Each structure stands twice: as C-alpha cells, then as structure tokens.
C-alpha cells in the first residue's frame, strides 16, 4: 500500500482532454463490456452562448468516493469501500438490482446490464499487473487521466472539483 495515503482513483484534467473517446472504448474493449454498459463516459459540455461559446470535456467513471453515496443506500450491503486503496466494489452475488445506488450516485456511475446487477469501474485492480496503468489511463494521448493515490482530504477536494465542473456547464 502507498504510504502517502489510502485513496486510489483516476483523476481527470479537462485541460488535457481532446475528447477522443479513446478511454471510453479502451475500457469497453479491455473489460469486454456488453452493449449499452459504460464504466467510463466522455461527454461534451457547453459554457456560454453563441458566439462567445466554448465547450469542454468530461471523462467520467466511478470516483471511488471517500464516502460513497451508493454504498450508504444499498439495502443488501453489496457495495463495499475496501480498506486498501479505498476502492468501491460490488458483490454481484448480494446485489438485487434495486437501482437505489443509481439514484444516489451524483455522477450517474452505476450501470445495469442483462443480468440486472450493478456494475462499474473497479480501477482494473484485478486485471492489471502492478506496474501497469488501467487501460483508460494507458491509452490517453494527453495524460488527461492519471492514476493517483492520495489522502482522504485531497480526494474529497477532487470530488468537489468535479461537481463544480459539471455544474459550470449550462
């Protein structure tokens, strides 16, 4: 475990994102996701009005929040925040597919495929060797996605930055 903190997540720097969608499809291909299910989404957001209008991009997957709202509302305790790295994981055997987590998540992260149980980004913990970045990070041409390990307060700040970014769009 990293000694500088115990929160792992993938941070997003909008100024480095060219909206190529490489991360979105890297995730779909590497995790062999079914049609309609997305662990990572790339969205175009607008700010201002024509002709003083600009756009910016959001590449969004599970933030593995310090206090995950999804876990708090889960009636079957299927969602856990792990001690190591703070990764938020789903126990598919316990999930009943009630979708309360989807309502609770401020970022629209929880996905439900054919089987009806919640699935989402798990940072590819179980899929990648230790010295390799998750495929979405590995494929990013502008290093807009960075795998970071830091303390809970920095992590909370990152969550707030994302909330502000989303709410700044019109």
């Amino acid at each position, binding site marked *: 475990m990293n000694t500088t903190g115990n929160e792992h997540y993938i941070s997003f720097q909008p100024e480095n994102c060219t909206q190529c969608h*490489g991360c979105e499809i890297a995730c779909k291909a590497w995790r062999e996701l079914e049609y309609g299910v997305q662990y990572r989404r790339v969205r175009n957001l607008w700010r201002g009005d024509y002709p003083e209008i600009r756009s910016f991009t959001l590449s969004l997957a599970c933030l593995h929040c310090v206090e995950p709202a999804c876990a708090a509302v889960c009636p079957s305790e299927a969602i856990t925040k792990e001690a190591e790295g703070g990764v938020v994981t789903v126990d598919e055997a316990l999930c009943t597919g009630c979708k309360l987590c989807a309502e609770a998540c401020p970022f629209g992260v929880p996905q439900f495929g054919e089987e009806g149980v919640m699935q989402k980004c798990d940072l590819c913990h179980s899929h990648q060797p230790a010295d*390799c970045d998750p495929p979405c990070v590995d494929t990013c041409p502008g290093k807009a996605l960075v795998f970071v390990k830091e303390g809970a307060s920095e992590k909370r700040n990152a969550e707030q930055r994302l909330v502000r970014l989303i709410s700044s769009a019109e």
Partner: protein
Amino acid sequence: MNFQQAQTIAQLNGEEAIPTVCGMCGPGGPGGGCGIYAFVRNGVFTRVAGMDECPVNKGAICAKGHAAPQWVYSADRLKYPLRRVGKKGEGKFERVSWEVAITHIAEVLTEQKALHGAKSLAILTPAKRAYSAYLQRFLTAHGSPNYGHSGICAMQRAFAFLYTLGDYPRPDYNNADLIIYWGRQPIYAGPVAPPARAFLAAKKRGAKIVAIKPSVEPDVGMADIWLPVRPGTDAALALAMLHVVIRENLIDHEFVEKWCYGFNQLRDHVLQFTPEWAESVCGVPVFQIEELARLYATTPRATIDLGNGVEHAPSANDAIRAIGILMAITGHLDRKGANIFIKPPANAPKDITLRDRYDRDLVEALVGPEFPPAFQPFLEGPSSAYYRILESVLTEKPYPIRGIIAPGTQPLVSTRGTKTVLAALEKLEFFVIVDVARTAEMAYADIVLPVATCYETDHPYHNVPGWLMAPNRVIEPLGPYKSTFEFFLDLGKAMGYGNDFWSGDIAAAMDDQLMPLGLDMAQLRQHPTGIVKQPPPQDYEKYQTVFNRRSPRLGNPPFLPQGKVALYNNSFEQEGFSPLPEWREPPESLSGTPELAGEYPLILSDYHTSRNYSASWQRNIPHLREIQPVPVLHIHPEAASAREISEHDWVRVSSPYGWMKVQAELYPGIRPDTVMILHGWWQGCSELGIEDYPIADGGANVNLMYSVDPEKAYDPLVTAMTSQTLVEVTKWRELQ
C-alpha cells in the same frame, strides 16, 4: 505500454501480445501508422494497446484503434469472392474462388483494352492508403491514366501551395506563439498523432490558439479565439485579411522585394476585398477579420495549419493560394515558429509508381483531369477526378469509362452527386469491388473480392515520418482472403504484366522497395517494435532551394517560373486561369443566391472527420456506433425553436437537390444560420439492431444534397467539389 508490459499482461491473461501497426483510419491498409500491441487468445484477436516505442502515437491509441477486433469479426465482413448472377442492382451472386475471380477480371479488362483502349479502365482511390502506389502502378502498366482521386482531399491544398510557394508550408507547432487552425480538425484527424499532441503542448505553454470553422468542435472549445466562418467562404476571409495587411502596411518588405513576384498587381487586386464586403459573405464580423489579420502579421512566430475544410468549395484553390500569399508577404515562411519547409528524408523506399513511363499521350487520355492537363502529372501521378470518372459513364464525354475497380472506397457515399453515381453504376459495363466489408454499392458489382484486414497479413512494410516497421500477422485470415496488395500482384500477373508485379511474389515486392534503405523485410522484422528514425535538424530560410524546386509536370519545369513566390501566377494565367486569387460563391448561398433563401433559409455543409468513424466506414462496429448511433444534424437551438424542433426530434432536411431524414441535435456551438452533419451515413449495425439507411432521398447521405452543376459546383483549377447548399429543416411527421 511497452513491449515488456504487453508481454507481462498477455502472460497474465493467457494471451500473446503481437507488435504491429493499427489499420483503423485506413481500412484495408494501414493509414495513420500508429504502433500497437494486438492481443490474441486461443487464436482470437481480443484487444489492442498503444505502443510506447512508436514515435507516432507514443503509447496512446484512439477509440477506433481499440475497436479493431469488432471490425475484424463484424457480421458485415465479406465471406468469399462473389460473381454477379442476377441483374445489376439485384444483389444476386455466386461464390467463386479467388483464382476464378482474378481470371474473370483479367479476361474482361483484356477485352475492354482491345476494344476501347486501356484508358477505358479507371481505379477509384480512397484517401491515400499504403496500397495507393499499387493502384497507380497497375494503371500505368495497363496504359490508363485514370487514377480517380476524390477531388476534395489533400492534393487540392498541395497543388495550390506548390504552385504558389514551391512547397507545402508545414506548421511549426512546437515553436509558434500563435497557431491558426483554419478549416482544420487537429484532433479527430488523428487523436493520438503528433499534431494533436502539439495542440495540447501549445496550449500548455501559453501559445494563442485561433480556430476558423463554422461550429465548435473540441479543438474550438479549447481555443482562445473562434471565427465562426460560413461554410465554403474561406477565400473571402483570406482575401479580406490580405486587404487588411496590405492596407495597414503590415508586410515584410524585405522578403516581398527579394522573394515575391507580382506584389503591385496583388496590392491593386485586393483593394476590392474589404472586411465589410467579407463580413457580408463569410459572416465573420469586421472587427474579428481585422484583429486576426493584425495579430497574425505582427506575431513573428505565427503559423497557420490549413485543413481539409477549405478544399470543399468552388473557390478552394483561391482560398489556399490567398493563405499561402498571406504567409509569404507577412514574413511567415520557413522561419522558426511560422510555416516551414521540411526537407525530404535522405533515404526513402523505392518509388513503384512507374513514373518514368508518364508521357504526353498518357496525360492527354485523362477522362476528367483533376488538375488541368498542363499541370499533370501532379505529385501522385496523373489523376482524374473521382466524380468525373463516374459522370463519363453517363455522358460518354470525352469517352465513357467502361471498367472501374473500387478498392476500399464507396462511390455512393464517398463522392458528391449520389443520383448521378447510382445511374452510372447501373450503366457501367464492369465494376469490381475489393473491400473488407460489404459496401453501399455492392449490388452493382460484377466481381466482389474480399480482402484481409491488416491484422490478417504481414505486409506492407510501414514507413512514416520517424518510424519504419514490419507489421506482424495477428491472426490467420478468417476466410479465403488475400490483401489488397496481393490483389494487384495477382491481377497484374494474370494480365501479363508479371514483370512489373514481381511475378506475383509479395515478399519480393516488399524487399525490392526496402532495398534503398539497406535492409529487407526479414531484417526489419528483427526489430519487433520497428526502427525509430530521428528527423534531420530543421534549418530555415531555404528560399533559394525551395523556390526553384522542379515540378512533376512533363519536362519538369520549376513550380515557380521566377524562382519567387507567385503572388501573381503566370503559370495559371498562361493556361487561362486567374493569375490572382478570386472569390466564387458556392452554387447556393445566403450572399450569392438570396432569392433561394426564402424557401431554403439555412446553409448546409458536412463534417469530413469524426471522433469515431473513418469516412464512410465503421458504422457497423458496435463500440463506435454506441458513441454516435444515429445521424444527427447540428442545429442551433434558436434555429430549432423557430421550427418547433426539440432535441432528438427526427427532421426532414431539404435542399434543391434532395432530402434526408435525420435526428436534430440542438447544438449551441454552431452558427445559427448553418446546419451540419457528418458525411458517410448508410450502413447499419446488426449487432445493435440498427438497419441500413437508404442511399438516396430519405436516408442520411448528405452527398445528394449538393449541386454537381459543372458550371458552379467546382473549383475550375483543382476540381474541388462544393459541399455547401441551402436547406430548410422541418420536424418529421409521419405521412409527410
């Protein structure tokens, strides 16, 4: 990731990691040239990672690259060679072997050559592909000049620049303080390629970014200044910028004096193109035109990255010349941070286009010269305009093309004038399709040959700036496939041109071409991630050399007769074209045909590139189709609400020439007088339950919306075809 990491991951998952070259932005042959690791599990191609060692993509890979396995295993893959048994257009075929198909083609082409001459054959080319030289080689060996180039891509810029400046002025991204992206898509055109990285690096170091195009794409979203120009009016904007820099004396007198020809004529000529006039044409406010002209002229390290967007208008050549002239007279040529001339590499693979056989007879036989015959051959050899080849089938002027081979290109969705193309395909005597997946016009083919994807072959060698690589076969071909390269070798041999086609031996073809580089394929393959080549150091102000460069025209006269930048162009004047850049309206426009604006009040144009598709390919790939499932029309919310159109409503878009049924996307980042759509829509995606769209009216094929009037729809010098018209958009109602 690097090779070692790829191998570690592969081992962890019971896979093999195979270093090779991505082929997704040049289907049927490598295009962008990014290095990848292809992962294979039990003989199945599963996924892709970018190769750190490749200097092109440096470990990144885009959405298309990641979707490669779905392309290879698509339900739309052609299964085996086919020969038509029903009527044209009926789509009834019998299965034949590769050999029978090749023999059949050779027999028909031999007969057509005997009866009508070799020129009766044309080969339509997609954008530049690794196999393009094989098309040219085959045509020259056969005796036909009719290489059918699209007339809307790259060569239009090259032609105007070379005959104005002697070379293509490349943007010096890495040293510029100001970068003007003009009709350019630096991201979608290669999201992991050097220009996209340079865009981000320029932003990071604080360079000012200007974007000139009709709508806000991600690059505009990140720009400092946006000039929302009306589609097809770049020439008007450029001429007004010339007016401003000359009027305000913002020019480099020393350079103009020493290295430019015809400044006085230019000065007098651009007096008429005031910013006020330009605003009425291009829709960019006077203050923005003046400010950009001043900013560019007074920023020493300022560069212009001119994109494909300017090549789709009747004054395309004028726009490009005017922009080249603007670079020259403001002192922005071949200086640090400006537009620079790149020296050709010391060693290049052998040229295989047989250009030593080009002669007057060959050039005069062109059915529809892309550039005037006096300027043929150009860089890629002699060429006819793609659309004019098809048109000749109907008009029989100057003579009818009787045989067409279409390798990796779809005439019904790749060129303008869909209705003409459809009629031509119905009448065409012999039509051969060579492709990976089914195409829009397959029902009209006499022979269909299915080719291997680049993941199923071990050639060609791959030579791009900075990188030389031997690709590796990732999986065995999924059917009786050969590559497009092998198609031309086999056909060449069957036609009796074996001496020109390495007796049909693809390995010999590769080794022969690599010889000038001092190695063969086997030796190159010893470098699993290729050979990285350092670019030669850049030196500047090479005017004496560049301005005296010889052209590829017969006899090789220099591009610039005076050895100076052609502000006033004698070469064009001698052939009856304007010596100075002019303005020509698109066939229909708000400023040129205001009488149409009552019935058709909005400007329509189309996007050439997208983040997830290569031209008209790849709509059948589920991963990519999910990003953009239906054809959408970008329409400003005000224009939409005036028509009671809401987000995701289906709409009818009608021009004087045809109509489409597409979905509205309320898009705040587009000119309110303009609507735009991506071109190339027809193909469904069976995996997602999406059906094909009609090719003709009522589908989403934007090509049929434009004029193809020979008097109005073309740039007279470079055959650029218009992609602007006027339309009305109405909410779709059933029983309409």
